């Protein structure tokens, strides 16, 4: 039985005491899972992700990462998690290598492993020659690649991504997918949101569909999809609830 990496129980988050962005959401991500989180714009995906990564506080419910509470053991949880937001604004006053070294220091990655991983991922994503330049000189895709390398630098138990493939060229997208499989093969888990249903269908072994803050479908991709495509299922459950 695979270990539970991420457990969300009855998560609720309300903005300005009026709008419930997430309403009583529960799900579990196990070791080895690539868990896709799908929903329309404003459904509550980013709110959920922010709550999981400790970036946002929440009103009710509990979130555990490898058994540790995000509220009570936040530092411990963050040390096991890597997060890449949908628009990774990085420190533009640093060079790529300075940023990666900074992240390495924050996550206390030993020198040898740090250098090996930066070399490995930097060469894979073809970013190494640019690591000496300021991040302010990077294109959007290069910033995305830098954020990806920084996320994989400490080999997190849980990798949380918000729209990770936006802005990546086809080769980088392909490389990222391989990196994700490789990470999960080592016993970690990935939880990511996307609008691109074809990617979710091919990449994810588990799917959750959220609408207006509520979880309306979840489980193995094959079970959720059935005989239809994920797109058809998504449109049907979203329209049905309307």
């Amino acid at each position, binding site marked *: 039985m695979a270990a539970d990496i991420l457990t969300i129980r009855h998560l609720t988050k309300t903005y300005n005491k009026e709008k419930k962005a997430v309403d009583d959401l529960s799900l579990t991500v196990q070791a080895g899972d690539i868990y896709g989180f799908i929903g329309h714009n404003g459904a509550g995906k980013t709110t959920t992700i*922010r709550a999981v*990564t400790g*970036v*946002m506080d929440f009103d009710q419910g509990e979130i555990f990462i490898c058994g540790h509470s995000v509220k009570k053991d936040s530092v411990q949880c963050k040390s096991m998690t890597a997060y890449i937001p949908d628009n990774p604004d990085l*420190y533009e006053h640093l060079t790529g*290598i300075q940023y990666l070294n900074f992240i390495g220091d924050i996550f206390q990655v030993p020198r040898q492993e740090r250098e090996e991983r930066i070399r490995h991922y930097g060469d894979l994503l073809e970013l190494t020659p640019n690591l000496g330049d300021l991040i302010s*000189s990077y294109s959007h895709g290069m910033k995305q690649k830098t954020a990806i390398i920084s996320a994989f630098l400490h080999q997190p138990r849980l990798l949380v991504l918000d729209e990770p493939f936006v802005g990546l060229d086809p080769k980088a997208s392909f490389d990222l997918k391989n990196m994700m499989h490789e990470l999960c093969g080592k016993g970690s888990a990935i939880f990511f949101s996307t609008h691109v249903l074809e990617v979710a269908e091919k990449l994810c072994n588990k799917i959750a569909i959220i609408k207006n803050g509520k979880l309306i479908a979840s489980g193995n991709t094959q079970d959720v999809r059935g005989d239809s495509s994920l797109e058809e299922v998504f449109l049907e459950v979203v329209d049905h609830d309307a």
Partner: protein
Amino acid sequence: MMRKCALLFKIQLLQQFGINRLIHSGTSREKRRMLLLFIGGVLLALLLAGYSAGAAYGYVYLGLEDLLPSMMILISAMITLVTTFLKGNGILFGFHDYDMIMSLPVTSFTVVLSRMASVYGMNLLFNLVALVPAGIVYGSAAELSFSSWVMLFFLLFLAPLLPLAAATLLCILITAVSLRFRHRNLVTILLSLTLIFLFLAGSMQTSQWDSRDITALGKAAGDAVNHYYPPASLVSKAVVSSSWADFGLFTLLSIAGALLLLAVLSLFYTRLNTLLGAVHTRGGYQLKELRVSTPFRALFSKELRRYFSCSIYVLNTVMGVLLLLALSIALVFFDPSQLEDLLNLPGAGQWFRSLAPLIPLFFIGLSPTTNSSISLEGKNRWIIYSAPVETITVFVSKIAVNLILFLPCVLVSSLLLALGLKTGLLNTLLLFALPVVYTFFISVAGLMINLKFPLYDWESEYAVVKRGTAVLVSMLLGFLTTLVPIAAAILFQNPLAVTAVFTLLYAALTLWIYQRLKAVKLFVA
């Protein structure tokens, strides 16, 4: 053209101070922030206006009212030079919507005119606050003719033009020089600081600084201004003698200078912005052995780099301690007993000596780096929010930057003040203790204020560093925490005891605020 210029200017105005955001999406928190900003602005304006009127009245009292027009022009020039110099880059060059604006069917001249109008408007506001009270005091005391009153009125609007042109050209020059360097921000900072200090040193050059007659001192200052800044001499002749010829010449010079600048800037505007937007890339990086640090040192190093990457941040925060250093050096050569002769107040020198530990507080409290360090995280704040470090570690790294920058200057200043003023043993101890304690206090207080009044969705650091609510509140706190001990020292007639008490008080407040900081959790709202 004017219609398009007005449209562009309107967009800038709505953006400044967050007016449009307040109108369309203002939360109650946002409205409170704007109200505080407004109240703070009004208080500051009243303070400046009061000081301006007081200074003008001083000249009238000494029988030197005819020097006031020159001094007003000088003040206007100083305000405009410094403001434009510090603001120029963010408004005129490299603004975030440059691409969009320049792709519109408008000429470069129209864009430049709209941007310059914005800078001129800001300077005009400051000039009105500084010059109107002085003008009223002067006009009443000198019993001006109607034509002189008319000239004074138009002077308010003309005075900023020449300094605006000069400061803009200096901005361009410094930017052009810094473009040749990899670390262009550091070069900009160094050149800007050099220029500001040259200007300050030059403006303090008068032939009779050792005069014990304050009237002679005032006259010498006025003569120096007229000699080194010819427009001041023109204005002085125009207003005092109601000379329309001199006023006409001043008007012609001011408008011609401004138009010339507009023409030149329009011609090279696109090229300048392109050069500014270009970034140095070298490529070909090869991985070397990496230096490993603790999380705290990594955060501290990141903070320090952040600080020096933003010239407006450096210039805004470092001026206070550099002025303190300059004053301390000057006081090494100044005998406090001269004050007694200058002000005709026996014992003034001894009082000044006993208040010495309180002098540095004003400069230290002007603008600590911490009062905007949280806001400056901006869109990057997700990094520290998701980082596996205690929040207090993040805070301490920011506080440490302020301490490492301010404490050496404070200690050197205290030493120079002790030497220059020849303070006694106890006073010397307090001269070190109070400023050091106060530096810690203002560092933690600045951070706490920024946590209460954060501003994350900025497009330019200028909005945070110069116009943020936290910066304003912090500055007011700085004034209050300087004035209160001085007032108490005078009230209780025992500066030593009062200084000792406030040293302990600020130390206790520092610890209290630090404990409260430890309980703070950082989250996206």
